[in-house]
């Protein structure tokens, strides 16, 4: 009879546990939620700051913002600009942040923040539409100089890349042997000239603006980079050294050759950048990214922050219940009240262990003394418990005030203990004292505290709160284990001691 009725039960348990574990593994693989909370990844927080003076007219400020910068992934974008309307406008592959306001006067500052995650897989992306070279026209005598320079470069090169490198070298001041080069090149038009010349030879070329990422730099400017199109993708060159490729610590803020900032209704505008290297848990990363992923349906991060905090605590309770079940069923520790230890452990999480222990023991001890007086009054049960609750509140208030006056903030944490539970604990302990003696009070009190401390230690492990909150499906495993323990019919650890005298009869 027993074996037949239990097989479905064990199957169900197996199903529960394997469902919990496989769901967790699946979500780990799909969403990249880490098993441990400690895994961290670097991200760059780049802030663009626009300063201008308002002239009293309506203002429209339009800033070019990065769109698919090579080597980086955009994690989040946000603008801080009180009183301005803000939106991100996307047209023809350009993304622009636009601020607008009806009346603007005096100095103004607008911020645009973007979080970037280094991601090497995004280095080689082909544009959606192949660009074409833009024809350029020169007047004499520049036209001759351009032709001469391009001829020189062509003879020394074989591919668009090498041509570009050679041309850059020829334009450097130390190599200007060709006549009229000095006439052609000035510092102001250098980048423009370079891309025009390349376009003239039939190579699509453009200027891109990049930002060197260095931790905690402020007031940085964009540096120009030359980009040519080799038929598949844009290649980046350093316009001074002719070095090909984008340095790892450069993010291209602006790639299309359009203006960085358009401002209507203000003057003396200036754009500067500051940046900060942050490391955030990879958890936050996956959490920020999972909102778009269908698998995020199990994620509690979709709840408002306040509810999240509540669930963080609630989801730890099953762990406490598991420990209480284990301690009572398998170990056989006697506690006063079945789940009182969990509630105490939850309070410990708020108060931290040592202050919590001191506060709890002192409240219960003082309460027991007062309860002694109450019992001599011969009150009815309900009014005695009610009186006790009020006394417990007095005691906690007194301890808090005394602790605060003496400079211990920890005294305040007493309030985290559930008052009614404490009152009942005192009542039970007191009855136990009268009926079974002090010995039993200490055994059960110590047992309760021991289980509470164990539950607290388990619940306060960072990995515990991480796993329970990010993998709520793991609670199926906890449930399975608890159900399994409900079928445990073996000896408790304490019974091995209790039945020890039976040795005589073996």
């Amino acid at each position, binding site marked *: 009879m027993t074996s037949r009725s239990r097989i479905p039960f064990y199957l169900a348990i197996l199903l529960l546990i394997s469902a919990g574990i496989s769901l967790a593994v699946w979500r780990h693989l799909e969403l990249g939620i880490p098993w441990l909370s400690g895994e961290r990844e670097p991200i760059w927080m780049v802030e663009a700051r626009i300063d201008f003076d308002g002239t009293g007219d309506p203002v429209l400020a339009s800033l070019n913002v990065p769109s698919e910068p090579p080597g980086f992934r955009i994690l989040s974008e946000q603008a801080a600009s009180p009183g301005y309307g803000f939106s991100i406008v996307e047209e023809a592959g350009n993304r622009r942040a636009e601020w607008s306001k009806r009346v603007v006067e005096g100095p103004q500052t607008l911020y645009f923040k973007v979080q970037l995650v280094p991601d090497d897989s995004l280095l080689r992306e082909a544009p959606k539409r192949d660009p074409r070279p833009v024809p350029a026209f020169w007047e004499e005598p520049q036209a001759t100089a351009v032709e001469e320079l391009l001829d020189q470069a062509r003879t020394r090169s074989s591919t668009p890349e090498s041509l570009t490198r050679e041309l850059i070298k020829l334009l450097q001041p130390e190599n200007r042997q060709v006549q009229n080069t000095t006439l052609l090149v000035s510092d102001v038009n250098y980048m423009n000239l370079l891309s025009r010349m390349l376009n003239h030879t039939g190579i699509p070329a453009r200027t891109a603006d990049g930002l060197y990422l260095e931790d905690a730099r402020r007031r940085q400017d964009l540096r120009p980079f030359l980009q040519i199109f080799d038929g598949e993708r844009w290649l980046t060159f350093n316009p001074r050294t002719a070095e090909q490729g984008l340095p790892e610590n450069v993010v291209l803020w602006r790639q299309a050759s359009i203006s960085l900032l358009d401002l209507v209704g203000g003057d003396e505008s200036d754009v500067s950048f500051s940046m900060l290297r942050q490391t955030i848990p990879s958890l936050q990363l996956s959490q920020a990214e999972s909102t778009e992923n269908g698998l995020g349906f199990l994620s509690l991060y979709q709840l408002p922050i306040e509810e999240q905090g509540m669930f963080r605590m609630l989801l730890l309770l099953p762990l406490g219940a598991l420990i209480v079940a284990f301690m009572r069923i398998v170990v056989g520790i006697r506690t006063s009240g079945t789940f009182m230890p969990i509630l105490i452990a939850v309070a410990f999480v708020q108060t931290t262990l040592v202050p919590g222990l001191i506060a709890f023991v002192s409240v219960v001890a003082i309460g027991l003394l007062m309860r002694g007086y109450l019992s001599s009054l011969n009150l009815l*049960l309900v009014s005695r418990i009610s009186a006790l609750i009020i006394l417990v509140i007095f005691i906690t208030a007194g301890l808090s005030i005394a602790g605060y006056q003496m400079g211990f903030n920890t005294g305040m944490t007493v309030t985290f203990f559930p008052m009614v539970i404490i009152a009942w604990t005192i009542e039970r302990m007191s009855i136990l004292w009268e009926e079974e003696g002090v010995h039993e009070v200490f055994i059960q009190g110590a047992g309760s505290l021991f289980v509470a401390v164990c539950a607290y230690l388990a619940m306060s492990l960072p990995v515990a709160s991480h796993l329970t909150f990010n993998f709520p499906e793991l609670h199926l495993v906890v449930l399975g284990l608890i159900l399994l323990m409900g079928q445990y019919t*073996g000896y408790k650890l304490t019974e*091995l001691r209790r*039945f020890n*005298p*039976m*040795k005589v009869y073996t």
Partner: protein
Amino acid sequence: MGWISPFKLNRLGMLNMNRRNVDYISRYNSRESYPLVDNKLKTKLVVAEYDVPTPGLLQVVRQQHEISRFKLMADKLDRFAVKPAKGSGGKGITVISGREEGQFVKASGAVVTLGYLERHLSNILAGLYSLAGSPDVAIVEDLVESIPGLARYSFQGVPDIRIVVFQGYPVMAMLRLATKASDGKANLHQGAVGVGLNIATGQGLNAVQFNRPITHHPDMDLALENIVIDDWDQMLAIASRCYEATGLGYMGVDLVVDAQKGPLLLELNARPGLAIQMANGCGLLPRLQTIESLRRPHFTPDQRVTFVKKTFGAV
């Protein structure tokens, strides 16, 4: 104190707490029968239909205002016991063993006033001694006069006999003797002495106090080996009949032997403890399994008692 290996315990057939709860109490005791045994008044009324004698009921106090009626009655009484109907483990029982100048003398010798008893009654009604603190009723009973043969083994309290009854078969028994340490109470975990009894004959086997084997009563200094319980067959029959009365498959039956009335049922327990195994020096499991494997159970209490005496008598 050392530790014993679980394999040794298994070989002894020791029933443990988890197994008792899962395999016996939750399987053989149906929930609806619990109120019958958790309430002494209900127990008394239901077992009376099955010819199980209990101490005489003097009065039931159900409401606070009925306490005044108790005063009228108690004035004429010398010896009685006040009990909470839903009390467990002997909690809240006050035994008045005599009168002294209008005051009441407790079994411990303390003299108390009528006011003390009235407060005690109102505490009982408020549920001070009941499980989970639910409102309760108080019952006033005749005081049991233990037969002198047994009474001399007990310090103050009345010695009682615990018989574990499984599906109507009395499987194991022990005599519980109050001691100074147990404050006149017959609960083993409070320090009472447990003397294992041969289920077939009612003769003493081993004795334990605080889970340790002893040979003599710690207060009376009397050897515990030679105890024999009179009217043993009658007690087994009473215990067996309680199964029909309550329908509880696994229970503890607590009996006393009154000097005038003979064996009386004191109370029933749906969650009998495990210490009886230590007093008997053997485990319950083999006996329980013998009965579980019976293909043809016996239908009358007498048949069951005969079976038990034949099967479990040889120690």
